[in-house]
């Protein structure tokens, strides 16, 4: 089907469905290329944890080269056994330590998963006639050659698909749902179903499929399209899914089929559970399109429903105002079941948040995760970068945006420590989580700062530290850009990038080009360091001194050599003069222009700009007052600086009292701990 025909086809559908299903604007406006369209029917068997499915894919080659094959992701095979690339990589992290015999801890036969494609055939369309391709399928491991990894399936076609041509294929598949891995799976009668169907990779210019194996540290990448999905589940289950409900049919066998449809998205996820409570609310904000918010919440969290709505609304408002409006008109917020492992994940028009039964207001949960996952509707959902290769483009952008929206909507959060296996939270109101550092996760980045250059493809990051380079480092350098360029400029950059690449697949260079274009500056030097290198930033005041400026030794005066001994003071007229020396040092390998500020005892201030390139720099002043303190980067523009404490130095150190203050609090802990030891004798 040609693009125009396809477009007409879906317009027809939307007209048939009417405005109750899609907004008027959406019914007429095609937002994305819609070159990968899925019609799926699937049935859930909660007892066997199986999915029985059939899908029809209509794919249009909208690239400049022909292809004679189709490549599919079979994500559920990542948890088929310990030989999969995903699980082999995961053993490099501490998350699932393998046993000596190679099996995974606490996993039973029922916990593993797979997706089995039982048939695949071409449907008659254009030059293609009905052809069974089942025998043509094979597994491929383009990333690591792991012959036992079955997460990529290649199907060779009898004829190639030329640029502009389309093909329709039909697949039948059976999926065993895992006990949750990577946020998809089951716990008891709770199901969160994501990455569950055979899904096409992305065919790129140059004639190559971008269809990576599933890796422990990566997420997803797909083309945009229209998804029409019919999910059959027991009738007592509440269902939430990507898109809007088109139709709901009660079947004779005690099941109900929920028919959902969504255009201009690149994935489809759904959830079903008999326990969900449903609440709905409408988001409205001047200048932004309204959004129907549907919340599926666990009964024990019902009192937190308003907090979920407030956070979702905050994301829709701030992201919508800063970057661009949310176009879909509806969003489903899923509060996952306890320990289901499905929390904190984004899918088009649907996301999972995550909270606890006891969760004090003023901490950063569940607001933080809700804003973040809703924020992914913008960075990932609308701007659809390749998460296998450049996940930082969405995760990092979103981490930065989350922190900003959280601060704007809720102010600074307080630190919460959870006691007794995490059940009892205690909020420490005086310990605030600053947006720029805590929000952008400096503490996560610090220990792994040199583990990988960010420009390394995401799936090649060291699995245990990749997320920190993806999420944290990006958020930190965006924070640095915000303070270096100003929020107005950065907001313009991000909004331009959003507008230009919405419903597209941007690459890193696209963003860097937008930065240079919007700022009118050449900022490549910055990205060379933060993106293409793993060097760290660390500026410090190495030393400060302020001594009487009187010289000592032999000085030429009026043609004579006169000896000056050590003097207690020097004067200029009646003023005493002090010579102040400040040595600023660059400890890290990376460079950034910094300001150096000197504050003197008489209130005078001196500010210097240093390009930060040399290893050290001396600043000298002769002033009628001693130095009070010196600070490099006093405004803390360089959020990436790993050690900010060393950025300032007082002439008269004052650390004794604060050290005693905090040690005295720690001492009370230690004294009580010793008394606790004594209980045992």
């Amino acid at each position, binding site marked *: 089907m040609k693009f125009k025909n396809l477009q007409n086809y879906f317009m027809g559908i939307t007209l048939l469905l009417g405005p109750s299903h899609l907004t008027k604007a959406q019914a007429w406006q095609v937002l994305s290329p819609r070159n990968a369209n899925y019609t799926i029917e699937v049935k859930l068997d909660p007892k066997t944890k199986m999915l029985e499915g059939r899908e029809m894919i209509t794919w249009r080659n909208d690239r400049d080269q022909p292809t004679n094959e189709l490549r599919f992701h079979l994500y559920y095979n990542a948890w088929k056994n310990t030989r999969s690339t995903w699980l082999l990589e995961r053993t490099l992290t501490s998350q699932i330590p393998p046993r000596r015999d190679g099996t995974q801890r606490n996993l039973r036969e029922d916990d593993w998963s797979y997706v089995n494609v039982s048939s695949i055939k071409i449907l008659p369309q254009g030059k293609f006639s009905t052809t069974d391709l089942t025998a043509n399928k094979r597994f491929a491991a383009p990333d690591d050659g792991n012959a036992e990894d079955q997460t990529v399936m290649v199907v060779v076609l009898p004829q190639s698909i030329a640029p502009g041509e389309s093909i329709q294929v039909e697949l039948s598949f059976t999926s065993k749902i895992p006990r949750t891995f990577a946020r998809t799976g089951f*716990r*008891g*009668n709770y199901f969160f179903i994501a990455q569950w169907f055979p899904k096409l990779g992305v065919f790129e210019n140059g004639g190559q499929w971008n269809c990576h194996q599933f890796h422990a540290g990566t997420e997803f990448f797909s083309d945009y399209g229209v998804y029409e999905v019919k999910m059959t589940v027991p009738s007592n289950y509440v269902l939430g899914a990507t898109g809007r409900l088109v139709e709901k049919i009660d079947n004779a066998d005690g099941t109900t089929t929920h028919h959902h449809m969504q255009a201009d998205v690149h994935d489809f996820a759904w959830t079903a559970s008999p*326990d969900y409570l449903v609440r709905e609310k409408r988001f409205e904000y001047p200048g932004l399109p309204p959004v129907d918010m549907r919340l599926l919440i666990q009964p*024990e969290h019902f009192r937190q429903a308003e907090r979920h709505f407030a956070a979702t609304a905050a994301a829709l408002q701030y992201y919508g105002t800063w970057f661009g409006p949310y176009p879909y008109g509806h969003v489903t917020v899923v509060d996952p*079941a*306890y*320990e*289901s492992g499905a929390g904190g994940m984004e899918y088009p028009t649907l996301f999972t948040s995550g909270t*606890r*039964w006891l969760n004090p207001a003023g901490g950063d949960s569940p607001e933080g995760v809700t804003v973040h996952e809703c924020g992914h509707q913008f960075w990932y959902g609308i701007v659809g970068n390749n998460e296998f290769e450049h996940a930082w483009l969405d995760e990092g952008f979103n981490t930065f945006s989350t922190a900003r929206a959280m601060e704007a909507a809720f102010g600074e959060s307080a630190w919460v*420590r959870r006691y*007794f*296996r995490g*059940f009892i939270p*205690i909020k*420490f*109101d*005086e*310990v*605030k*989580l600053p947006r720029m*550092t*805590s929000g952008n996760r400096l*503490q996560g980045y*610090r220990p792994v700062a040199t583990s990988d250059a960010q420009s390394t493809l995401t799936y090649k990051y060291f699995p245990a530290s990749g997320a920190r380079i993806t999420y944290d480092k990006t958020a930190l350098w965006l924070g640095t850009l915000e303070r270096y360029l100003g929020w107005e400029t950065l907001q313009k950059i991000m909004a331009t990038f959003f507008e230009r690449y919405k419903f597209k697949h941007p690459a890193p260079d696209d963003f860097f080009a937008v930065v240079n274009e919007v700022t009118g500056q050449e900022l490549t030097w910055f990205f060379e360091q933060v993106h293409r290198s793993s060097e760290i930033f660390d500026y410090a005041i190495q030393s400060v001194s302020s001594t009487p400026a009187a010289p000592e030794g032999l000085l030429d005066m009026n043609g004579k050599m006169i000896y000056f001994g050590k003097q207690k003071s020097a004067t200029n007229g009646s003023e005493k003069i002090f010579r102040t020396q400040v040595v600023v040092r660059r400890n890290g390998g990376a460079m950034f222009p910094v300001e150096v500020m000197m504050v003197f005892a008489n209130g005078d201030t001196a500010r210097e700009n240093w390009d930060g390139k040399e290893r050290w720099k001396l600043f000298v002043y002769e002033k009628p007052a001693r130095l009070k303190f010196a600070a490099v980067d006093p405004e803390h523009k360089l959020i990436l600086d*790993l*050690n*900010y*404490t*060393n*950025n*300032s130095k*007082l*002439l008269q150190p004052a*650390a004794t*009292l*604060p*050290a*005693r*203050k*905090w*040690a*005295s*609090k*720690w*001492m*009370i*802990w*230690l*004294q*009580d*701990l*010793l*008394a*606790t*030891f004594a*209980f*045992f*004798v």
Partner: protein
Amino acid sequence: MFELAMQKEHYRIFEEPMIIFSAIREGLRRVTASPKLILFLWLFNFVMALPLTLLMSGQIESSLGASLVSEKMQKSFDLDWYEEFNHSAGALGKTFSPAVIGVGPFLGNLESWLTGSLFANYAGIVGLGLGYMIIWMFLLGGILDRFAHREERLTMERFFSASGRYFLRFVTLAVLSGVLYFLVCGFIAPQLFALIAESTRDTTVEKTVFFMTAGAYLVVAFLLMLINMIFEYAKIATVVHDQRNGFAAVLNGVQFVFSHPAKTFGLYLALGVFLLVGLGVYSIVAPGANQSSVINITLTFLLGQIFLVMKLIMRLTFFGGQMALYETMTERMEPAPATV
């Protein structure tokens, strides 16, 4: 006849609470009658904690250096500094956290006590804790002797002589109780929590797991307290009867606890509740992080010390009260000490 029977029943109902509260009152009286002992034990606790505190103070001071952050840390808490410090700190430094504010230290230690995780602490602190246990064990002889012979004058000589006299006997008891504590913390508790994890594998409601976990904590706490109570009565029997045989003392303890379960458990629980109420009060009045002057910092520290002293008094009241109960009940029943 009926009226008389009712009266007797009435008295029986009130007898046990009366005995328990009498024991608490008597225990408290014995403890507060020895202010020098309280002062000495607090000082012991303080002095034991001081060297590591000085080390910690040095580490914090060294990290803050002459930076402007030190000014912020004087006024409040800087999470950025803490994370920097924590990243570069050694094992001792890593024991510092924002949870030292307010009631945090006591909650953390309560958690460590319940889970036995205080022995999984930094080796230096565990070593100090073990040393503290040994010295406390030594001092306990003097403490119990003092409570047993309160009419006699408290002298250093008598105190340490009693400490020395009972030390080896208490070591035997500590070894025996240690085996049981290890069983509870190292075997029963992990098994209980594993059982909960297993049985709630498909549970989707946190509250269910919460209450099961709370139940498991109660079981662990009960077992810890039961062992503690039995061995405290064993120590009391050792001192009161000059019992030399550790096993016999334990038998005495077991016999006593289970002969008077309502009174022994009631007394222990009542004292435990007082302790928890005290913790609750402290959580309300405990100062936060915003002291900046020497006076405020000192006052905050003193308030913490006052709470520690209150806890110490309560701990001693356990001994004093249990001894009073033991004496009362053994006087009534005049049992022969158990022998092995």
